[in-house]
């Protein structure tokens, strides 16, 4: 396992941790959808939450980003990405929920 040890916490162990976390965070939403165990609203919230955590897991364990260890310009790029995702997903939710409210609610 010596070769796997590299700079910035890139160990085989950390990759495996990330992998297992990602698997779990994928299995949970699929499970929720397949079993129908939760009510519609809590199911949506749970799926959304696992998606967000999944993103953070990828950034942390696969792209090795850390608030302190990563150069500032790279964090800026991530922040910019976050803003865009917020616009796209937030905007879509706003638009589609507004439509839902006017058509079916």
């Amino acid at each position, binding site marked *: 396992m010596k070769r796997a040890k590299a700079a910035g916490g890139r160990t085989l162990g950390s990759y495996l941790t990330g992998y297992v976390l990602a698997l779990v965070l994928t299995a949970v939403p699929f499970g929720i959808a397949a079993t129908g165990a939760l009510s519609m609203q809590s199911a949506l919230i749970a799926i959304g939450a696992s998606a967000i955590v999944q993103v953070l897991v990828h950034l942390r364990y696969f792209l090795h980003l850390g608030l302190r260890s990563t150069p500032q310009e790279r964090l800026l790029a991530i922040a910019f990405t976050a803003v*865009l995702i917020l616009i*796209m997903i937030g*905007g879509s939710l706003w638009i589609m929920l*507004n439509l839902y409210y006017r058509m079916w609610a």
Partner: protein
Amino acid sequence: MDMRILGRLTAADALPFYSWVAVGGAVVTVLGLLTIVGAITFLRKWRYVWTEWMTSLDHKRIGIMYVMLALVMLVRGFVDAIMMRAQQAVALNSTGYLPPEHFDQIFSSHGTIMIFFMAMPFLTGLINIIVPQQIGARDVAFPFMNSVSLWLTAAGAGLVLISLVVGRFSTAGWTGYPPYSGAEYNPGVGVDYWIWAIQVSGIGTTLSGINFIVTILKRRAPGMKLMRMPLFCWTTLATSILMIFAFPALTVTTALLALDRIFDMHFFTNAGGGNLMNYINLFWIWGHPEVYILILPAFGIYSSVVSTFAAKRLFGYKSLVYATMAIALLSFTVWLHHFFTMGAGAGVNAFFGIATMVIAVPTGVKVFDWLMTLFRGRITFHPSMLWALGFIVTFVIGGMTGVLLALPPADYLMHNSTFLVAHFHNMLIPGALFGYLAGYMFWFPKAFGFTLDERWGKGAFWCWIIGFYLAFMPLYVLGFMGMARRMERYEISAWQPFLLIAALGAVVILAGITCLVIQLVVSIRKRNEKRDLTGDPWDGRTLEWLTSSPPAPYNFAVLPQVRDIDALHDMKRHGSVYVRPKQYEDILLPINTGAGVLIGGLAFVFGFSAVWHIWWVAAAALLAILATAAARSFRDKTEFCLTGSKVQEIENRHFRDLAREGVL
């Protein structure tokens, strides 16, 4: 799923016997291909074409191939356009000469081709040729990925072209809205051709975006601070950012549509709990940034052209940079204006309407900057300058009709009318295509070492601009008269005079395209008279004019030292241009490889088999793509060393030319 060996591919379905016009189109397509293959074989040039061009990783050659693809597709897209104009000119109370099934394919392929396979390759090609040179770099950051992007784009274009011969193209328009594009209403292969052409080329575009961003951020010459980059580099950076953030939205949306069609899923079908409006929402999350992907590079080209041919420094450089970046960000906040009529609440519509109008502000800033650059300049009326002037005037009109459409109540009247068709052509033809043509005529001598004939260039400009006004101004009127877009026939005789004028306009544009062809032929024939040995035919201001024409594979033997926005102009003033070092250093260059062509070819096979549900071939092609990429990444030797003495030889030749021209 279909498990037959050839999926749903049968001769009866595949051949275009539903319309004689379609048979004609198929024959022309096949003959065109045979002519090219035959000519290369007859001239015994296959080895040359393969080793020097197809497998090349040189960003200039890749760029040239992109532009060639774009020009071919421009002709194809225009043939579609003039066929529609002819149909609408005659289809009053009659079926015209095109059956509805065929007419619908034509507007779909026209829109798809013009956006994805004319405009996108054109701008990607120009960026490829010029941006590395403008920032003083020897290459793009990822030369091999660049080749993959090119061949993926070509594969997508190939899918659209072959749909004319084997099967049919989509009839669902360039936007492919469900439910009409779903399997229930559109069981044939048309929509699938559209989907896979877009998937394949869209991935190529995303890769190009990554490549350009890294190139600009990491490969600038010493002293080339971000705020010293020519404006074309800034607009390229903005466009590339839009590419990598917007294109995944398109890829995902069309992939979901494919899942609906193939696996009977229900993302966009109401019956299974899906929502077709979400398709429209997701599509335009990509779609609006896309129009800025097309337009921003043209803005950069105009900036170069205007300042060079006004012989002045660009007015308001900083404001142009900030306006570019503001447009890039704002372009992600307006997408709903494409579907105001969906029925969202007043709050939603008002927000997106106002955001849309806000974009007009940075765009207006740019127009004033160009005008101020022209003001009191010593203007040379090179054809590129004419395209720029035509753009400024015409684009403002399109911008105003756009602000009008940004008002939701007005949009309710004009939505999907020919007013809209007039508006977006009013933006895209002057705002994108004219810019690319300006860039083509401006930078042609850089790519090939001789200038393009100016008389035919001016002829092309005048035909295009007059033809544009004739072809599209009547559509504004027709929109107010209530004519919807995409109409194959109509019963209102008051429309016909306007449609006749529009058809005349298309004929004038045809003359413009003919001028472009003649210009190219005449210039190639007279290339010895038109030779430019200096590499700097227009008294250029930025670094791409420092290299020889065509540039050496490494562009710059010595990386330039940049001290000003107009880096070359600054060097000329200080007499520090064309200085030779005591000794040339060795330069590493990428080794050519056929892997990019192979991946593109396999992607074509994959797309074609996915269209026809030949799943075993599709899976094999996908695996082969992965295997090729993996094999390539295990290669250790991807670069070769051009020794200093070789570099010196090449440079000696260049400096001999410079001396002969009296520049030194």
